[in-house]
């Protein structure tokens, strides 16, 4: 998942299997994998105050696509399945939530059968029924959920719903039986990642009476520990305990500690830090401004939590436009960029690590390798990135015949991105291009660089995983299907389309349904093959830094949604 403007989003995704070991850092508390500790009623109560620069838009869980609110939705809404509470890698596990158990598969993985828990009520007092479940799935299409066409298009009947959302009926795709309290979901084809897709907020269960368009700021009744009291995007989001909530699964939706959560908006990042330091707020949402890092790392070290993210910062080249329609030109830049320098701009080696594989560390399919470091080639990669190779880069530029060409670098206009742009300009100039930086508002940069009409040659962007399957990275970002010329929604910014690789990726996906380990091995090979072609240059993988006030206790990091908000203790 991409971060929202200047803001880190949570890493969102489900871990089917995480084979690689998480990279430990000196600052991240080594936490053993395990279940959530038992509820300690002595610490219940109080008001938790969270601060952020801006609200994250609509409050409709089926439409909102930001980590900022997905973190909140975990404590408010429930799906049939959800990501587990717990510690360590447990937080990547999908567990049954409103369903009694994980689905029973039949029909070659194409049919999923759930049994709905009994006795759960919405915050408005009405019981959760199978009809609500069916309506909720139809609602995904009715409200034009951003993932309707990518996550849920495999449900039988989805194609018609996508074409005509207003009259969406999933009579064959989601079959419910009120008497037996069962829900059967029929897929067109088996899907390796279906459990994860059913566990994210876009698949939560809303009352059948929820509006059939984006609810925006109107409040939809919840099932979780909290319900929403009020929402004003320019001021605050207030959550209070859901009076109808009774814990049914300690893993899926545990009882919460604070009585109320006040999420305040319109506080600048530096004011957020000050507020947390002065115990006026419990937690700062936005990244800590670089000039405050040293201060909190020394004076407030005990309140800082750093954890790895499966995400990356990368530079998409436009492979259809000079000079980067030339392989050597792309490789030259990949060799030339000093990833350590970029890490420095980001905040130092404690907050990010250089990488050059497309799949980030800790990600299914990731292999430790680097083809673009001093003394290595894509064919003979090193284990890790060491240093840039400017001499080789200059040579490649000369060989490519693109030396002296003008290159525009399009970056967002926030501090860090702009600095990345300025740095890249220096690098591109030093290897023989005439580079200019074009910083544009972070709110449109992401769509701007996608549209081929805008003729962007190279840009800086970020990707934070959606669900932890290699297909999400490689297929979504570099598959032929993700490239639509002249559209603002063409996530394959490189415009890279390699038919042979596409076929391989399809094969790997199919293999994933039956043999995840073998599939991931295949993805690893695809990764190296793609990077030899260098449609993008990967720079580094960032880490998550949480800064909480001294009076805030019980910080638990979730690999899925970052910090568990409902488990923080203020008493």
């Amino acid at each position, binding site marked *: 998942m991409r971060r929202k403007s200047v803001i880190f989003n949570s890493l969102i995704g489900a871990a089917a299997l995480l084979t690689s070991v998480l990279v430990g850092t000196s600052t991240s508390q080594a936490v053993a994998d395990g279940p959530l500790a038992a509820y300690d009623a002595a610490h219940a109560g109080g008001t938790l105050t969270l601060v952020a620069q801006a609200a994250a838009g609509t409050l409709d869980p089926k439409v909102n696509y930001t980590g900022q609110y997905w973190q909140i939705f975990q404590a408010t809404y429930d799906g049939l399945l959800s990501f587990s509470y717990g510690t360590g890698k447990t937080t990547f596990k999908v567990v049954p939530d409103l369903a009694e158990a994980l689905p029973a598969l039949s029909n070659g993985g194409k049919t999923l059968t759930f049994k709905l828990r009994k006795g759960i009520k919405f915050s408005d007092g009405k019981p959760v029924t199978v009809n609500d479940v069916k309506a909720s799935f139809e609602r995904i299409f009715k409200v034009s959920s951003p993932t309707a066409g990518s996550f849920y298009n495999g449900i039988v009947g989805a194609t018609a719903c996508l074409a005509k959302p207003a009259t969406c009926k999933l009579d064959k795709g989601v079959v419910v039986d009120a008497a037996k309290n069962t829900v059967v979901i029929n897929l067109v084809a088996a899907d390796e990642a279906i459990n994860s897709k059913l566990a994210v907020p876009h698949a939560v269960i809303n009352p059948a009476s929820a509006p059939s368009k984006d609810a925006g700021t109107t409040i939809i009744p919840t099932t979780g520990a909290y319900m929403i009291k009020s929402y004003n995007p320019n001021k605050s989001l207030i959550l209070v305990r859901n009076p109808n909530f009774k814990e049914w699964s300690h893993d899926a939706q545990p009882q919460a500690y604070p009585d109320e959560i006040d999420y305040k908006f*319109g506080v600048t990042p530096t004011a957020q830090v000050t507020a947390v330091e002065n115990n006026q707020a419990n937690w700062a949402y936005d990244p800590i401004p670089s000039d405050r890092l040293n201060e909190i790392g020394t004076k407030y070290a005990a309140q800082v939590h750093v954890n790895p993210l499966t995400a990356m910062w990368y530079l998409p080249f436009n492979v259809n436009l000079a000079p980067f329609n030339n392989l050597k030109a792309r490789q030259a830049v990949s060799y030339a960029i000093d990833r350590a320098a970029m890490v420095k701009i980001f905040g130092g080696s404690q907050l990010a690590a250089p990488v050059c594989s497309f799949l980030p560390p800790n990600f299914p399919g990731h292999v430790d390798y680097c083809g673009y470091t001093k003394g290595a080639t894509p064919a003979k990669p090193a284990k890790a990135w060491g240093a840039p190779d400017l001499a080789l880069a200059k040579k490649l530029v000369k060989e490519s015949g693109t030396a002296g060409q003008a290159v525009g670098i399009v970056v967002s206009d926030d501090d860090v991105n702009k600095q990345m742009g300025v740095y890249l300009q220096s690098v591109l100039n030093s290897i023989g291009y005439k580079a200019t930086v074009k910083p544009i508002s972070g709110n449109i940069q992401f769509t701007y660089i996608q549209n081929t009409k805008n003729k962007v040659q190279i840009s800086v962007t970020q990707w934070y995983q959606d669900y932890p399957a290699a297909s999400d990275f490689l297929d979504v970002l570099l598959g032929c299907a993700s490239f639509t010329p002249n559209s603002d929604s063409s996530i394959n910014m490189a415009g890279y389309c390699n038919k042979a690789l596409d076929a391989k990726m399809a094969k790997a996906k199919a293999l994933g349904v039956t043999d995840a380990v073998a599939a991931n091995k295949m993805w690893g090979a695809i990764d190296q093959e793609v990077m030899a072609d260098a449609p993008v240059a990967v720079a580094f993988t960032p880490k998550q830094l949480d800064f909480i006030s001294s009076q805030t206790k019980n910080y638990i990091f979730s690999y899925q949604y970052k910090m568990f908000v409902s488990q923080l203790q203020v008493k």
Partner: protein
Amino acid sequence: MLTFIGRRLSAMVFVLISISIMVFLIFFATPGVDPAARIAGRGADQQTLMQVRHSFELDRPLPMRYISMMKHLFVSQDLTSYVNRGAKVIPQLSQAIPATFSLVIGAAIIWLFAGIFFGILAASSKKKWIDPTIGFLGIVGISLPVYWLGEVVNLITQSKLHNSVFKWVPPLGYVGLSVDPWQWFLHLLFPWLTLAVLYAGIYVRVLRNEIMVVMSEDYIKTERAKGASEKRILYKHATRMSLITIVSLFGLDFGALVGGYALLTEVVFGIQGVGKLTFDSLQNFDLPVIMATVMYASFFVVFMNALVDVVYAVLDPRVRRV
């Protein structure tokens, strides 16, 4: 007089319509600004994109979109934001207005008092050093970039000296007067002072010069010849005449500030006023909010302009012919 007011009103409406059309056209001429993809969400497929475009009327021709937006803004008053969907624009605006008024009125009181006091002092003081000193301070006042001054004030009160002298300074932001009058005052104190510095500088200079000009007029010389005391002349004639200038200047400045010119001060001090709302919506390319704030802002600017003109016309009928 009625025809004059009528003419001013129709000119106002014309200006407002022109501005709204320009804002609209500039917005849609900006590349990459098409809200559909941002509304649809990251990586939305082309079908979803089309659905969103349709439901936000973005697939209709520009003039239709303009009329529809104006209708939602002024007639049904239910225009909603592109970014915070479902959030109605007009309540957002009306919630921001008290903060802006608090900021501007407070600052205005300070700068008017300071400006008038020092202006008269500079023009009347017998001591040789006072006039140049006040003149110098006035120049410094009008030369300070307000955003920079704000940041330096924040650096001092929020960080460097926050743990000693300025412990009592609350964090940045705004607290409503009705919520807690004392906190309202504390939160706004430094923004007031920062904003007032510039205008106090202007008013001191204008008032001093006006008084100087009036004092050199013939009728004042006559008064002097008649033996009126310097003080009496100053207060009765000079100050009264000069205040007419100050009042009209104040009208224009107040209109402009309430209409969003306090943007930088609001941004720097994190005050959720109209300026900040405008700035945020510009950053977000949130056209409905931009349109509402721009209409509101230009209304105030144009309205105060017209009001000052009308007041002038009442005082001096010749103006009406021009």
